[in-house]
């Protein structure tokens, strides 16, 4: 039996469509300023940097260079391809590992072994590809990438851990917690250049610097701090590990301390907000079940704070990859480039070498790196986040 569809009268339909169109137009008008601002100050500079990266641009626009600026930064294509292949293998290894853990026990060992084999292959390919890139590419820029990674990996986990511990303490409503909350937050709101200058003095290589005076209290030898280009592991234990595996220099470690000091306060405030949003009933239930403080932290506080932790880690990594001001203030020729993150190298290429096209290519590469890291972080850690 054919159904008779309900039809609006023609005039009413037209009126509704017009109203809908008007609402849409109003919506667009409301968002237009934001879209314009984002397009003008966000997308346009990025697009323009992308455009510049294809040219020789030295104060003024020069001839078209195609991908040569990228080639100059990364080296010959074979090295780049091998390294990209290594990243793909790494992703595959991670995927196989996860699958193997979910599969039946008989196949699990085989799957895990295959994943480990892939991981070894990925590391070998990465080392080979990276070595080739260093041979043929811009050593300053390429060396800045692991320095950037060291800076991010050295500062973010440490500042999150300290901030979480402090937030948990402050959340106990101890006397003076409001005062300490303000004290911890102060470094974040103070001008970076001023505080970095103070840190530069504290970590000066002079015997009389505060850091060296502190070491002297324990009968330890004075250190070069910001002027030390040797890796921390070598300074502390005498281990001379090759290249990347040597870890950050003592100079970079000193700068990492500054980064941690600056951002801990901000993280504490966000963690406190997160702690406040966890239902008290959960703690009461855990207490009734006989859970001790550690159990409560491990099974309630930490998991339920995971959205906050994830957010702070994400923002922190992006910030660390772009870090500039304090490193600019604290760097010294004695550090031999071991504190030069990608942002520093880009700045030098732009303002000292005046190679705008090449600097733009470096900017695009850094942008892709940030995008990649953020995506990977989202994929890897996003799954562990518990939202309720």
């Amino acid at each position, binding site marked *: 039996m054919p159904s008779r569809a309900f039809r609006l009268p023609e005039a009413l339909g037209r009126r509704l469509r017009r109203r809908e169109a008007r609402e849409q137009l109003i919506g667009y008008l409301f968002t237009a300023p934001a879209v314009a601002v984002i397009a003008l100050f966000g997308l346009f500079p990025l697009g323009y940097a992308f455009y510049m990266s294809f040219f*020789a641009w*030295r*104060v*003024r626009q*020069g*001839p078209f260079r195609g991908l040569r600026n990228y080639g100059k930064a990364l080296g010959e294509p074979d090295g780049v391809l091998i390294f990209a292949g290594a990243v793909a293998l790494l992703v595959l290894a991670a995927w196989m590992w996860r699958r193997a853990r979910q599969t039946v026990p008989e196949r699990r060992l085989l799957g895990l072994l295959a994943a480990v084999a892939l991981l070894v292959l990925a590391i070998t390919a990465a080392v080979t590809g990276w070595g080739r890139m260093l041979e043929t590419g811009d050593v300053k820029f390429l060396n800045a990438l692991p320095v950037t990674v060291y800076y991010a990996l050295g500062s973010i986990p440490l500042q999150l851990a300290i901030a979480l511990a402090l937030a948990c303490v402050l959340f106990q409503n101890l006397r003076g917690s409001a005062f300490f909350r303000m004290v911890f937050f102060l470094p974040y709101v103070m001008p970076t250049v001023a505080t970095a200058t103070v840190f*530069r*003095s504290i970590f*000066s*290589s*002079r*015997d009389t610097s505060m850091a060296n005076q502190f070491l002297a209290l324990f009968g330890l030898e004075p250190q070069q701090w910001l*002027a030390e*280009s040797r890796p921390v592991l070598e300074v502390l234990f005498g281990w001379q590990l090759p290249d990347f595996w040597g870890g950050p220099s003592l100079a970079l470690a000193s700068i990492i301390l500054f980064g941690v000091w600056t951002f801990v306060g901000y993280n504490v405030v966000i963690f406190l907000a997160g702690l406040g949003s966890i239902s008290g009933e959960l703690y009461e239930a855990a207490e009734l079940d006989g859970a001790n403080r550690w159990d409560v932290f491990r099974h309630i506080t930490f998991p339920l704070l995971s959205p906050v932790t994830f957010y702070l880690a994400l923002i922190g990594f992006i910030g660390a990859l772009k870090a500039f001001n304090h490193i600019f203030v604290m760097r*010294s*020729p*004695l550090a*031999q*480039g071991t504190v030069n993150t990608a942002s520093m190298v880009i700045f*030098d290429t732009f*303002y*000292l*070498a*005046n*190679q705008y096209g090449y600097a733009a290519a470096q900017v695009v590469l850094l942008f892709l790196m940030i995008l990649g890291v953020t995506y990977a972080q989202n994929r890897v850690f996003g799954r562990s986040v518990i939202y309720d």
Partner: protein
Amino acid sequence: MPHRIVLSLTAAIALTVSFLVMPAGAQSDPWAKIDPSNQSLVFWHNHTRSRQDALQAIVETFNESNPYGITVTQETQGSYADIFRKMLGLLGTSEVPDLVVAYQNQAATYQLSDALVDMTSLLQSPKWGMSAEQQADFFPAFFQQDVFPLFENARLGLAPNRSMEVLYYNRDWLAELGYDEPPSTPEAFKEIACKATRTPFSKADGGGAMGYQLNLDASRLASWTFAFGGGIFDYETSLYTYDSDGAQQAMAFLQDLYAEGCARPVSERGGAIADFSTGRLLFSSASSSGLPFVRAAVGAGAKFNWSVAPLPHITPAPVMNVYGASVSMPKSTPQRELATWLFIRYFTSPEVQAGWAQAANYFPVRQSAEQRLGDYFERHDAYKTAFDLLQYGRHEPPVPGYDFVRAMAEEALAAIFAQGRDVEKTLDRLNRDANVSLQEQLEYLPSAE
């Protein structure tokens, strides 16, 4: 017919002769008919406090006295680096100032976009320029420094002042160590510096004694290289020569000084002046423009007698690293450019130079200014000592991208001096990298297109 030919020939010869005997500049003075009247100009510079006050006084006098109603406004725009960065963003726009301080390498960078006025025709203009006698009154080394072979010998600036790398020394401590004169050879320098570390100064304010502190700066590298008879740039081949014998000897000498514990790197901004003024540091090499600051610091510190000397050298005569920013003129309109030139001409005149030198503690660029500095020389013997060394001046290369190379040179100096890296290999690498960078800079010169 023959008569007409003779007449024509006579006319042609007369025209040719009159053209030939005409003053050279009058033949084609592009500025002769330009009117600079009533222009308002902006001058960007880096001077602050007493120097800015002195400059303001110069500007005011010019504004009141020039017959064309030209008004100059001077503006402090931060450090040399700040001004350079601001300029790079503004080149080719109407926002650029009419006059700007610029080191030679910075001017060369601006000129990559053909942004500066070549002052040659203004300088040579019969109506507005300077006579041959006036031009000869400039210290030749300063005068030539702003002529750029890379840009077909364009004059992209004119020096209003200069400074020089000198060795500051504590005269009283030197006497306590048993020496009457500052060391003139590297061997003597090492001997005294090492002795100082073992024999603290009697008036020292605080513990510790240091022979020499080296600021890890590209100009120090250049100065020591000059003192050892080397150079860092070959003007004939337009290539860096950081691997020269002189550079290698100089760096090996500094490395040895550090290894023996007789020298240390400057670890903090202003650290050398602080240590020198408190009597804990015997020798420090720095710019002569720091003379008033050292004077004030020593006066507030350990209060001892001090002076300056050339760096110890192996050359028969000292070779002094002379440097300083010139003033350059971004392109605008002929009227504004001419008005700006008239201010430059005033600023570099001997009378103004003598006053500016005393107020700013820079060296004047006009030789005749010396006659007006007699009293000042008497009151400031260190300044006089340095002034007398100007004749031995030599300068660092005025090429684009030198700032980038300076950063490389500073890392190389740090690696050699404080980290004991192989001198030859480090300098070879520096030289190779510097020349690669230079070639990249010169790849797209405006004149090459």
